[in-house]
């Protein structure tokens, strides 16, 4: 890692650690959802053990919050408050700037996964990890980073906040993360299966039950992991 990138990553982690609202969204909300729906059986989770369905879905919620929502809002506000202008006249390269933000979010995401795995196990979850689990997390984060950075590059300040949170809620509802996609009408479910969150949730369920997951879900997630970062690079402007 270049020293510029590591300097920016450390700084970004410091900013993230001090941002109470973002911490609530990225760390607090997934834990709350996991504990609530883990203890109270109010959502249809399909066949099988409810906790086996729920925990991988909540892991996706956490990755989405950290990878997509946090990045989009942080970048949108940095742009609105002129912080990006400062980097724009510095020696920071676009690739270092974007990758440092992604790396900082990756660090936060790993901590979240560990915490949520611990809470899930306390609620009775007994995962059997397939080696593909790490690849699913990496691809999902790549997709969410890319989409978050692209949104933060095109929408400033409150607009980025509103759009990121709206997308977050829509993806929560239509991705089978907290209830089974089969509960959605057929046509809607078919489209929803093409979302990165749906593919990530299905693959995390498989790879935490010692299975490799379906090829279709891998292809969908891989496509988003390519499209997201490409969009981020294409849409990013210093000004």
């Amino acid at each position, binding site marked *: 890692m270049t020293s510029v990138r590591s*300097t920016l990553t450390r700084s970004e982690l410091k*900013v993230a*650690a001090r*941002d109470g609202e973002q911490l609530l969204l990225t760390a607090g909300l997934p834990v709350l959802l996991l504990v609530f729906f883990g203890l109270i059986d109010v959502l249809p989770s399909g066949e099988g053990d409810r906790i086996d369905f729920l925990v991988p879905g909540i892991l996706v919620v956490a990755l989405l919050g950290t990878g997509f929502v946090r990045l989009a809002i942080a970048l949108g*506000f*940095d742009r609105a408050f002129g*912080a990006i202008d*400062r980097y724009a*006249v*510095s020696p920071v390269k676009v690739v270092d700037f974007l990758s440092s933000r992604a790396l900082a979010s990756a660090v936060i995401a790993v901590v979240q996964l560990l915490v949520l795995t611990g809470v899930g196990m306390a609620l009775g979850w007994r995962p059997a990890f397939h080696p593909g689990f790490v690849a699913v997390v990496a691809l999902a984060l790549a997709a969410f980073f890319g989409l978050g950075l692209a949104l933060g590059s095109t929408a400033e300040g409150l607009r980025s906040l509103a759009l990121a949170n709206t997308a977050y809620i829509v993806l929560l509802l239509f991705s089978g993360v907290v209830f089974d996609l089969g509960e959605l009408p057929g046509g809607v479910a078919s489209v929803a299966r093409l979302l990165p969150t749906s593919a990530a949730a299905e693959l995390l369920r498989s790879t935490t039950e010692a299975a490799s997951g379906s090829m279709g879900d891998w292809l969908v997630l891989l496509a988003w992991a390519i499209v997201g970062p490409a969009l981020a690079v294409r849409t990013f402007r210093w000004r």
Partner: protein
Amino acid sequence: MPVVDLQDVSVRYGTTVATTGITFSAAAGETVALVGANGAGKTSTVNAALGLIEPAQGSVRVFGADPRRRRAVIALRWGVMPQTGGLPMGLTAGESVQLFADLYGRGADAPETLQMCGIAAVAHRRWRQLSGGQQQRLSLAIALVGGSDLLVLDEPTAALDVEGQEQVIELLRGRAQAGSTVLMTSHRFDEVERVADRVVVLHRGTVVCNDTVASLTQARPQIRLRGISPEHTAALDVAVGTRFVASGSEIVSPVSGGTDPHRQLSEVLQWCEAQGLTATAASVGNTSLVDIYRELVTE
């Protein structure tokens, strides 16, 4: 090779023309001030020089390269203080200066720079907790921990009190003496006169003057009178052939080329005496930049 070189640069925002045909350069070690009224095109010109705006026409070279294509490399040699611009919201002033010092590989210089810019005492505060003057000092500190070959400062003293202005002027003089090239914008002519080697006057988006401060001010002697009301200037001009205008509490007149300024002053004083008018002070001196500017923009 000039450090900064703009040739025939025009900047447009949509259909709005901000600058037209801007041409000037800054040689190594030179301090160049872009002066002009609000909206004259100073910041657009600086932003074009920094590569933040793509000119609609013309060429921009900094250290011989296009700053839009080679920004990351060129930026290692410059320190920039933009007119506006915040900082990452979660960082304190001290951490912000440290961050940018680290990005330039000058991490060790951060504490001293905070001290030098007078913000060490508020280093623990975040950007939005600082006053306008403190924010400006912080911006200057970030510019000073950047590259030292070129300093680009957009209105460096705009929000500062008199003491702060003096400190910044001394800092800039020190940097210039140490060999830095300085490109700055200002609408404080006294400050420019004290700091700049060359002045580029912008008016309505065009360059109306590009000359050294010394040749501008010294080549144009001026008669200054105190105690004579501006209402008498028209009669005085007709009688003696001067062009008096009010300037603060004085009336001033440029001396035409070839005319002995002291002889002309003597004629002016004789006319005043004949009219029963008494000047409380009279002198011949260099024309101030502000008077030159007034002349230029009213021509």
